[in-house]
């Protein structure tokens, strides 16, 4: 039933407030669509959207079969524990190699830590198979990369609609949803442009729109302003925090201006939490 609401929410000429309201309605309807088949328990206000408990990760200690015995492993995370509630914007700070990206990858289910648990909406990600993690990621996590990682041969709209392909959403609704999201991030006039025809800031906004495509509960952003100038970076952060309301947002950065938008900053050094400033 909720799906029909998506079809009625279109039109680029309406006032911004109307547009925001219509996007929220779409979010609600999509949430209904996905929650019917979601494997994870939806988080309520009392449950953390993301919870890391004593997470340790060593690169080079697992995975590949034909690894040479002489290869050294690198400890990226040491006993990291913290949680993020829905509606929180949490910054991860620290120098390069401190483990910021590794935490984001673990939260997104792109890697399984060697020890500890990572819970996403109450589901232990570390206990899932590759396929189950991919499904959980598709339904509940939106990822924003430093270098955008848009598919160069797809239009902005097709890039945004990408996660909806695997979700089995029909083409017309994918297009409609992607167009609405692009309008929401201020790119309503760029829907058919290829990434090569967009500026860095525009590409990052497309990436943010893509991260929102399946209306995820958690957004992870790895140095989202790393490739952008200060003014463009500020615009992108505004978009990210605006659309990130009601979601758990994790932003990794070593840029103070970026971290300033966070409600809370977790500082890391050598893979360990050294400060969790509330």
């Amino acid at each position, binding site marked *: 039933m909720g799906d029909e609401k998506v079809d009625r929410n279109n039109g680029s000429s309406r006032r911004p407030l109307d547009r925001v309201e219509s996007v929220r309605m779409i979010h609600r309807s999509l949430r209904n669509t996905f929650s019917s088949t979601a494997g994870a328990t939806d988080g309520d206000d009392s449950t953390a959207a993301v919870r890391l408990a004593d997470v340790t990760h060593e690169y080079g200690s697992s995975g590949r079969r034909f690894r040479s015995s002489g290869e050294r492993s690198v400890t990226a995370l040491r006993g990291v524990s913290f949680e993020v509630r829905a509606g929180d914007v949490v910054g991860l700070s620290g120098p390069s190699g401190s483990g910021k990206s590794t935490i984001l*990858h673990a939260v997104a289910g*792109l890697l399984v830590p060697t020890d500890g648990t990572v819970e996403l909406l109450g589901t232990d990600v570390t206990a899932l198979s590759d396929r189950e993690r991919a499904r959980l990621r598709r339904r509940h996590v939106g990822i924003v990369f430093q270098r955008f*990682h848009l598919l160069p041969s797809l239009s902005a709209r097709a890039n945004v609609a*990408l996660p909806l392909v*695997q979700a*089995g959403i029909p083409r017309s609704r994918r297009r409609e949803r992607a167009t609405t999201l692009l309008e929401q991030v201020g790119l309503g006039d760029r829907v058919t442009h290829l990434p090569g025809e967009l500026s860095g800031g525009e590409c990052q906004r497309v990436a943010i729109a893509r991260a929102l495509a399946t209306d995820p509960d958690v957004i992870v952003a790895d140095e989202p302003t790393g490739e952008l100038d200060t003014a463009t970076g500020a615009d992108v952060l505004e978009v990210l925090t605006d659309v990130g309301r009601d979601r758990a947002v994790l932003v990794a950065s070593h840029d103070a201006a970026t971290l300033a938008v966070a409600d809370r900053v977790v500082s890391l050094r050598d893979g360990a939490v050294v400060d969790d400033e509330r």
Partner: protein
Amino acid sequence: MSGDGGGRRRTRWAGLVGLSTTRLWKRATRTTAGRVAATTGAVALTIALLLVVTGIALALAGGGAVATDDAAVRVAPEESGTLSAVDGVEGPRLGATNERAAAIRSRAGVEHASPVLVETVQLETADGDATHVLVVGVVPDEQPRTVAGLSTDSLESGDPHYAEGSYDGPRTGELVLSRDAAERLGASTGDELAASSVRTGDDAPSFTVTAVDAAADGRDADVPVALVHLSELQSVSGGDDGELADWVLVWGEAGAAESAAADAYPDAAVASERGVDPAALFDDGLAFATSAIALLVGVTICASFVATTMGMTVDEDRRTLAVLEAVGFPTHSRLAVVAISTLVTTLCGALLGVGLGVAGIAAVNAVAGATVAPGTVAIAHPLFVPYAIVVALLSGLVAVPYPLAVAARTTILEEVSR
């Protein structure tokens, strides 16, 4: 619920196909046109080459010099095709042909029926010039007919030497030479030619050239052919024992001719089709071998090209695969995108290859016509279209494991961290 799940799965697959083809189209037209063009072009050239070679093989199989006639129906022994001038292997023959042809001739709607016997016979002129000629024995009637590309007009009507099966009637000794045979023998109208086969000893019967005929369609220009009365050839070759013939030709209304032929020879193959049947490839050893080797080489080369170029494409495309993984595409969906891209590229190459192949066949015929072998040396057939597509898809399927293996080895963290 299951219906909803099935619908969602179908939509997902439709989405994956759409995503793959859109990406491919944009790459071909906007972003990486060179690589896509290289893969498609390689497939197209291989398929075109395959079709040209198969077309030549088909012409070999169907284009035996003696296969050109204007009859409505041809009765041939089962499991036998037309006798090829190339390898000349003798197949099964029909028996009691003179008698049964007479029976067919008496049916309503049938104008004429004649057994046709083809033998390689050495003809020798009075000057001592000798050459082997495909001699075709036929029973002519008053109407001029075309058999083995030659007109029966210059042969006396009927077959007097047959004499109701006694083979002691008067010999006419008439013989029509194809232009090529006349050139090789240096013979012309009115010349005497002595015929000798393994069966004739010193008493080689002689024939008089009554006409030198240009081939009906020029296809037999490189094969010397001669036309004589059936019984006279049967006497030379030994075919008189069982009134043997390679096939029986029936002229007249196609339907009546066909049923008369089927009644006379219930176990033989009755063909009223006048085009070249690709099934003839299987009956002709050389043509079959040629086309089979072309197929094998085609699949191998095509699969190698596709595997290499698509493997390189996927290698450059690891970041895309990593992004797909990041946005929640499981392994099988990512591999499906690679497989669909590979097969669609191959399919486009196949369609282009069909066009190139048909053009190639025309070019081969034009070049051959202008140089060494006037006439059709390669034949295109409508079945070439599905054949090319199936071969290309087969090549794609053979090739697809390599790009899939490259894709499966992609490590997302390495790609997104770059």
